[in-house]
């Protein structure tokens, strides 16, 4: 399960909807090793004055290829849009500790995503041996991604948008709370969440109130991606109440909700 430095080839690069693009790469070394919630660190071609690679959650992976979802928001992702089929891209991966899939079999997996956060959750649904439910939220209908991918796996998807253009009007917690109230029929959930800090904290609060487990994928600014530079730290506490800055690229990006001290995140 060692990480690798691999030169991958672009096999597909297309619009995915909502302003996102899907980049599919042939990476026979990395792709078969990817666990749900892990990421790759990509050197953006032709971005010669950038000293850092750019991290991307692995959206989909099979024996030879992996797919990334991104939106052109900064210099790195804008430069990525120029990639064409056949181009080479340097990757380091798979990186980080992803979502554990060995939770108790009597728990209903509940995936909670904020917009693009669903990219880190698709492999959880695909690889879990039991079916669960997806709650996804976004600002508007165009921010709701991948619903068809989850429904194709047989997972029901509950949608909330802040402007009400798709699903329930409100935050993702609106559909999550509805499911927790009436949808779960007494069954205990296990949460898998990826999205903004507010969403992660809200999921964690519900898990802790109910005595359940919530696996949260934090999104930090990354440096080296392999644990050397200590850029991407998250404030974690241990059972004794001691806290430390912990690397999200190495020990994370997935942590159980009780580990994270949110005061430092929101400060």
């Amino acid at each position, binding site marked *: 399960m060692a990480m690798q430095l691999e030169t991958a080839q672009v096999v597909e690069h297309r619009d995915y909807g909502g302003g996102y693009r899907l980049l599919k790469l042939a990476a026979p070394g990395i792709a078969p090793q990817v666990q749900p919630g892990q990421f790759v660190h990509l050197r953006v071609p032709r971005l010669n004055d950038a000293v850092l690679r750019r991290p991307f959650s692995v959206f989909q992976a099979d024996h030879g290829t992996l797919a990334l979802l991104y939106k052109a928001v900064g210099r790195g992702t804008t430069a990525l849009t120029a990639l064409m089929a056949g181009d080479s891209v340097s990757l380091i991966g798979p990186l980080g500790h992803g979502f554990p899939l060995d939770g108790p079999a009597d728990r209903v997996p509940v995936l909670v995503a904020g917009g693009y956060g669903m990219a880190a959750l698709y492999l959880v649904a695909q690889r879990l041996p039991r079916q669960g439910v997806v709650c996804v939220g976004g600002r508007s209908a165009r921010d709701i991604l991948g619903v068809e991918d989850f429904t194709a796996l047989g997972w029901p998807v509950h949608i909330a948008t802040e402007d009400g253009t798709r699903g329930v009007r409100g935050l993702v917690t609106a559909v999550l709370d509805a499911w927790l109230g009436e949808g779960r029929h007494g069954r205990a959930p296990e949460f898998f969440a990826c999205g903004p800090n507010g969403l992660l904290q809200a999921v964690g609060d519900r898990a802790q109130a109910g005595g359940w487990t919530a696996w949260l994928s934090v999104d930090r600014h990354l440096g080296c991606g392999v644990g050397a530079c200590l*850029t991407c730290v998250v404030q974690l506490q241990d059972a004794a109440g001691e806290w430390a800055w912990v690397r999200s690229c190495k020990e994370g990006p997935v942590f159980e909700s009780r580990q994270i001290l949110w005061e430092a995140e929101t400060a």
Partner: protein
Amino acid sequence: MSAPDLSVNLGGVRMRNPVMVASGTFGYGPEYADLVDLNRLGAFVVKGISLDPWRGNPPPRTVETASGLINAIGLQNPGADVFLRDHLPFLRQFDVPVIVNIWGRTVEEYAAVAERLSAAAGLAALELNVSCPNIKEGRTTFGTNLPMFRRVLAAVRLKTRLPLIPKLAPDLAQIKAFAQAAEEEGADALSLINSIPALAIDIETRRPVLANRTGGLSGPAIKPIALKLVWEAAQAVKIPVVGIGGIATAADALEFIIAGASAVAVGTANFTEPTTALTVADGIRDYLVRHNLGTVKELVGTILC
């Protein structure tokens, strides 16, 4: 012609080639070991260690700038004892000199961490990070105050027989004075430069990007500045100099060697391409072959001007 000799004796540190990885850019060994054969490095400089554990700064800790990176990690480290117990054994599996970068907040802390580490087996040298504020004496950094710089070096020198390599701050006006002071206080080699104090601002919030406000700039952006300082320092002393600052290619490293560096360290470029130190060493060898040079030592300080 036989293969050129890349080996270097850096003030008692015997290196198979002149290319090391700089402190803080390669962790404690395991971080890149899956990607890079550590046995092929000239030396491994461990991330800065203090006597006691230190938590470091809140994030954001780094920001990328044009051809550079500003960092304010804040020297997070597990302390000398945990380093020796949990981290050094991994590095000792490899045939590579281990140089430990050390720092303190007082002269006494520097001396204490040097003493603690010197009692352990398996270290090749100590590199002194003097770019820390002295919390006892006005928070001036050790590396920018000549008398304080001499005191901390003298105190550490008394506590260790390991080769001692002070890492100089990029003092544009006084680099020769610091280099000579280091030599007089018993340093076995010098490394320079440390990162350059720098600032980035978020124009939307008008706040500094880094939680620590300022940080240290590294990467290709600082290379020409570092090169001039290395050139000046190398002329001022007889002890060997390690050139550091923005090295990403063999050509960069060769510039430092021609300017007077006996060895070089690759830093920020490790984040871009983890194998940079290896490709730099290979490129130096190719250059020596191309120029009919039998050893890398022959090239050191051969700048013509």
